[in-house]
């Protein structure tokens, strides 16, 4: 605590240069979607991480953040929609990781069925925002009803969190993991069984409306790009709220109660923390993040089927949380970015490169060799390496502790610190 404060090096210039150079490289030189192009784009995205990690001029930090998020990424996205779609997917998974981080990282409840809440949100908009509603109830919501349903999804998913949580939260550790794994599958199986013609079973629901679609459509041939920008803005807003909410809960009596439960359930209870209620709050909060992102996912894909919500998704989100660092808010976002870009960008584009090499005869590879099929293997290896060399994750949790300095010790003034 009382170590001498090292003079912090200022990284303003390198970080700004890094962001600018990668942006110009991507925007003017590597415009395409090949492996190299995508890697340059990911490098550009990573400057956001450097921006918040390295000590630098506060003013420039904010300006650069705004420039990257609201000018850089949209410009590149406009040039090439696949780029911005990657960012949208990263943000969707980041919100899922943030939500699961509350459950697993803060409260210490291993939940392997988290994707169920994502499914609840997705089906909510899929049903009310498509012809499905007309067939079922004779009416359907207009496309901008999406915004209403997105908010409703927060509550509905939270409700599902409580509903699923109540019976299972009496269990601990491995038992809890197994039961949540089962309940997660139950939701998917229900969707597959098409109760009352609600979910259209394994066929899935298609032609789901997109918010502001009439407006973007009116912009002509470029309309689909604007549609991506719309989603981009929506996910950014949601992720911003998710980060603030997570942060504030963590820094409150509720967050302390979660940490206490994670550390020692019996002691937490003996200090007056109601176990079931506090765990349910964690479950419901985590679920609500997944719920709202589910509606966005449904609208963005404009198609939803049960296969999107299998157990691998839950495991994938858990992998993001663990990779990023259990209990770390920044880690959850970074973990989501790494895993998602690995899945959606690095491996697929690498596969294409290998294919090209094979076809041109430069590389003699057996036809069975397909990089994208090694996805699980690769992040299996990454996770194992992480466990050995950096078991606390990419960005280890550094829970902000409440610190009272000497001058204020008597008055009990509060100050955040690391």
């Amino acid at each position, binding site marked *: *605590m009382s170590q001498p404060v090292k003079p912090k090096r200022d990284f303003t210039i390198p970080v700004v240069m890094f962001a600018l150079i990668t942006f110009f490289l991507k925007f003017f030189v590597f415009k395409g979607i090949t492996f190299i192009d995508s890697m340059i784009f990911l490098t550009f995205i990573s400057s956001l991480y450097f921006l918040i990690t390295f000590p630098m001029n506060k003013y420039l930090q904010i300006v650069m953040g705004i420039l990257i998020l609201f000018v850089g990424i949209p410009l590149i996205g406009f040039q090439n929609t696949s780029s911005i779609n990657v960012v949208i997917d990263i943000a969707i998974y980041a919100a899922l990781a943030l939500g699961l981080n509350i459950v697993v990282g803060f409260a210490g409840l291993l939940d392997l069925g988290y994707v169920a809440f994502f499914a609840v949100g997705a089906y909510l908009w899929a049903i009310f925002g498509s012809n499905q509603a007309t067939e079922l109830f004779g009416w359907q919501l207009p496309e901008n009803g999406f915004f209403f349903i997105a908010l409703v999804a927060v509550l509905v998913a939270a409700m599902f969190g409580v509903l699923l949580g109540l019976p299972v939260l009496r269990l601990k550790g491995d038992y809890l993991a197994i039961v949540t794994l089962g309940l997660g599958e139950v939701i998917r199986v229900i969707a597959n069984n098409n109760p009352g013609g609600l979910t259209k079973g394994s066929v899935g629901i298609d032609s789901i409306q997109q918010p502001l679609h009439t407006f973007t459509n009116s912009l002509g041939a470029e309309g689909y790009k604007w549609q991506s920008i719309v989603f981009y803005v929506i996910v950014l807003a949601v992720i911003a709220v998710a980060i*603030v*909410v997570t942060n*504030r*809960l963590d820094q*409150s*009596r*509720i*967050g*302390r*109660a979660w*940490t*206490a439960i994670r*550390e*020692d359930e*019996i*002691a*937490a*209870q*003996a*200090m*007056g*923390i*109601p*176990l079931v209620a506090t765990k349910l*709050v964690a479950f419901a909060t985590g679920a609500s993040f997944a719920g709202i992102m589910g509606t966005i996912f449904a609208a963005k894909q404009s198609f939803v089927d049960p296969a999107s919500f299998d157990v691998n998704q839950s495991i994938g989100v858990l992998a993001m949380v663990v990779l990023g660092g259990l209990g770390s808010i920044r880690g959850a976002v970074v973990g989501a970015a790494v895993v998602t870009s690995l899945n959606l960008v690095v491996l697929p584009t690498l596969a294409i490169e290998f294919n090209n090499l094979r076809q041109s005869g430069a590389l003699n590879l057996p036809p069975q060799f397909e990089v994208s099929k090694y996805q699980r293997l690769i992040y299996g290896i990454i996770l194992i390496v992480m466990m050995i060399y950096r078991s606390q994750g990419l960005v280890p949790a550094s*829970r902000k*502790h*409440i*610190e*009272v300095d000497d001058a204020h*010790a*008597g*008055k*009990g*003034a*509060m100050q955040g*610190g690391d």
Partner: protein
Amino acid sequence: MLLDVNAARKIFGGLVAVNDVTLQVPEKAIISVIGPNGAGKTTFFNMITGIYQPDGGTINFNGSSIVGLRPDQVVERGIARTFQNIRLFGAMTVLENVMVGRHVRSNTRYIDAILHTKRFRDDEASSITRGMDLLRFVGLDVKRNELAANLPYGEQRRLEIARALATSPKMILLDEPTAGMNPNETEETKHLIRRLRDEGNITVVLIEHDMRVVMTISDNVTVLDYGTKIAEGLPAAVRSNPKVIEAYLGAGAAAGNFGLEKTEPNSAGGAV
């Protein structure tokens, strides 16, 4: 009576861990519960604090029954406790540990925490103020920003007491507060326990193995053996009770001078 336990019973399978134990604790008393290992002392504590539900008997606190309440509800009624094997939240700082104890006494709601309402800010500030007061009380205020796991043993025990006090209890149950302490630390703890009662107006019930502690600070001692109460009374009377000596040292030892050699001269009878 602040705490009135009547014929409390706890059965684990075929084992009667606590067999119809009756205990009355008047306000502002320091009461010790002693007994050989496995006598059911901690089980008895766990019944009072709601971790176990009794299989028989009644437990009244402050005039109303606390049987069937959850541990957190018992805390809300005003009973706090510490543990035989220290159970601090190691990843939290000393101050944060104490602030967890304020949980039942603060009413910040979910929405307050998200919106940072006035209620949230007031609650946080008062938790910190109260927490710091308690840390000063146990002499840990200088260590407020250290992780609880990094404290030395004796300080961890004191922190556990401060954390329990943070729940604003009327009564505190201390489970072997001096276990593993050196004579110096034991003396300090004894002093602290007296201050709990005298300055904090808190009733103390303690489980203790160190007879020097038991004999010098207790108003009254209850002895358990195999789950049954075998003696109760003033420390001096209990110490010379043949049943107690037999329970501790086995039959035949009753004739000896058990307890005396462990007690400081002139302190027989216990200080009150």
